[in-house]
């Protein structure tokens, strides 16, 4: 509303301070995660390892016929209790890569649309891609050293007609799914993401110092380039990093499905960070109208995720081809129903709860409802990625334990540490953004 804002671009600049108290808490969470992980690994190496061997034996017998085209039985022979550690690293690596790159995606959309309202909070998503420096080496090293634990198509002899492990279907895909090309794609995607982010960030910080609109227009161009890159790389990384786990199976919806999961998680993380900073007394110029917009984003993209998830499910359910339905059967009733509860929670956390909680206007303007919803979305989409990755890699040996808990705590606290560090490097508001005045008077 005109005349109601007490802020003007001259006095909005504020600097986030990552206090030693805050650092201590994050490090404590990190240490707790490490302790949980170590205890989890210790338990796994003793008790559960033995149990798992039994499960594998039973499982192998059950699926002795080796369903052709199926995703179920391919790993049973090679299972080792340490696999669970590498798969968890991969799961969190992919999940947090998504949150990080969605920061860049969000900023790019805002620039491409020349949106004004988001200029007060764009510094937060702008800091996220910094975490790619952590997830990139994790994904790269896990793939190079333990890739065969995660990817069926990396198994020895699988593309060699002379080998007893020869798999005609996988051999047919080896032109795309081979170690060298996979590594090239991974490095190229991360390189492009990081280069574009760095040049965006550089201009954004330069704008704080020098003002003007030159930086704004070059950021619009970078954003345009990034959207094109993201359009291709998000789909291809979904096929590579997640869909190729179930090598025989494929879905033409998968790129969108994983991207939508990443996107809504990223939006929830942005919202939660804004709310957290507001609670700490920063960003008072972010008012209920900005929160309303973020809430609308989360609401809309939760529905979008559901739409994509359901579109993928419905076509497979309706067509009823065994080589396609196995993906859902495996998650619904396969592996002694280890994944059934997650499959149900997935739809509740990611659709019903956000849909019902965020439906009204007031809910989207009330921090506590937003926080509850963010928590459901972030946990829910972790479960979504769990559900994409675990059944194809761990099969009946999957589950929830200290390893999962420890690993996600480690990644989350590392994310908070890295992002907080990045946030201290610049004013929390882009004080010379050409549309800042519009954002300060945002009213919907």
């Amino acid at each position, binding site marked *: *509303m*005109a005349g*109601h804002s007490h802020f003007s671009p001259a006095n909005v600049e504020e600097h986030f301070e990552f206090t030693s108290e805050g650092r201590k808490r994050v490090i404590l969470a990190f240490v707790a995660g490490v302790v949980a992980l170590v205890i989890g690994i210790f338990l796994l190496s003793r008790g559960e390892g033995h149990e798992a061997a039994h499960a594998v034996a039973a499982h192998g017998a059950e699926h002795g016929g080796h369903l052709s085209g199926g995703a179920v039985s391919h790993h049973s022979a090679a299972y080792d209790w340490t696999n669970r550690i590498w798969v968890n690293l991969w799961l969190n690596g992919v999940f947090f890569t998504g949150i990080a790159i969605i920061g860049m995606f969000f900023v790019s959309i805002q620039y491409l649309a020349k949106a004004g309202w988001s200029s007060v909070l764009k510094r937060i998503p702008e800091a996220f891609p910094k975490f790619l420096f952590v997830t990139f080496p994790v994904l790269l090293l896990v793939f190079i050293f333990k890739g065969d634990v995660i990817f069926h198509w990396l198994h020895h002899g699988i593309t060699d007609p002379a080998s007893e492990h020869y798999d005609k279907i996988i051999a047919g895909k080896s032109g795309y799914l081979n170690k060298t090309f996979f590594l090239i794609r991974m490095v190229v995607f991360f390189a492009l993401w990081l280069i574009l982010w760095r040049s965006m960030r550089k201009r954004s910080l330069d704008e704080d110092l020098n003002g003007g609109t030159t930086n704004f227009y070059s950021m619009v161009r970078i954003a345009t380039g990034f959207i094109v890159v993201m359009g291709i790389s998000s789909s291809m990384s979904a096929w590579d990093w997640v869909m190729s786990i179930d090598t025989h199976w494929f879905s033409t919806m998968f790129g969108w499905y994983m991207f939508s999961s990443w996107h809504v998680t990223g939006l929830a993380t942005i919202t939660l960070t804004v709310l957290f900073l507001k609670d700490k007394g920063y960003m008072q110029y972010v008012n209920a109208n900005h929160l309303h917009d973020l809430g609308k984003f989360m609401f809309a993209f939760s529905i979008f995720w559901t739409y994509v998830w*359901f579109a993928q*499910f*419905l076509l497979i*359910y*309706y*067509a*009823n081809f065994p080589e396609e339905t196995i993906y859902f059967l495996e998650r619904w009733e396969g592996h002694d129903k280890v994944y059934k509860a997650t499959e149900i929670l997935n739809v509740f956390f990611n659709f019903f709860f956000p849909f019902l909680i965020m439906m*009204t*206007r007031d809910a989207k303007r009330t921090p506590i409802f937003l926080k509850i919803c963010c928590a459901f979305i972030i946990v829910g989409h972790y479960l979504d990625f769990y559900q994409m990755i675990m059944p194809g890699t761990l099969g009946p040996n999957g589950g929830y334990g200290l390893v999962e808990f420890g690993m996600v705590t480690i990644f989350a606290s590392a994310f908070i540490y890295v992002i907080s560090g990045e946030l201290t490097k610049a004013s929390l508001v882009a004080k010379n953004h050409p549309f800042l005045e519009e954002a300060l008077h945002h*009213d919907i």
Partner: protein
Amino acid sequence: MDTNQKYLVGIYEDEDEVLHAVSEVRGKGVKIEEVYTPFPIHGLDVALGHPRTRIPKAAFLFGLTGLTCALSLISYTMVFDWPMIIGGKDAFALPDWIPVSFEGTVLFTAFGMVFTFLASNGLWPGKEPRLFDLRGTDDKFIMAVNLGSNRLSENEIESVLKESGAIEVNVKQF
């Protein structure tokens, strides 16, 4: 709407002026019926003290009606009246029904909201437009005060409008 109502119509030249005038006039105890502007003005609805629209609630109910109708129709035709097995599924194959139920929900909501909006604003084909001042569709901002719903006299209200910046105050009767 009742015929033969007498209105005082204030004409303003600027959107900021009319926005301030609304608070000023209301502050002096005059009830404003409506303000007509050539384009939307941010904060005008709040300044006028209009209650929030109830159309979202109507939309929800229309949606619920649409969902119920779609599900009833599908389940009657596909399960009860003439059970059909498609793709080896049970006759009651809920996932298959979701797209149609969704479309039914959207259809009922969209049409329901449009017609509710038209009805609640008194817009229907052949309706004689109630124009306070034609310039309100061009470059002037029109404030309409219904004399019947105000306790102040015509002269008092006229001077209030003039003080608040109206360039002219006219009388209009419907």
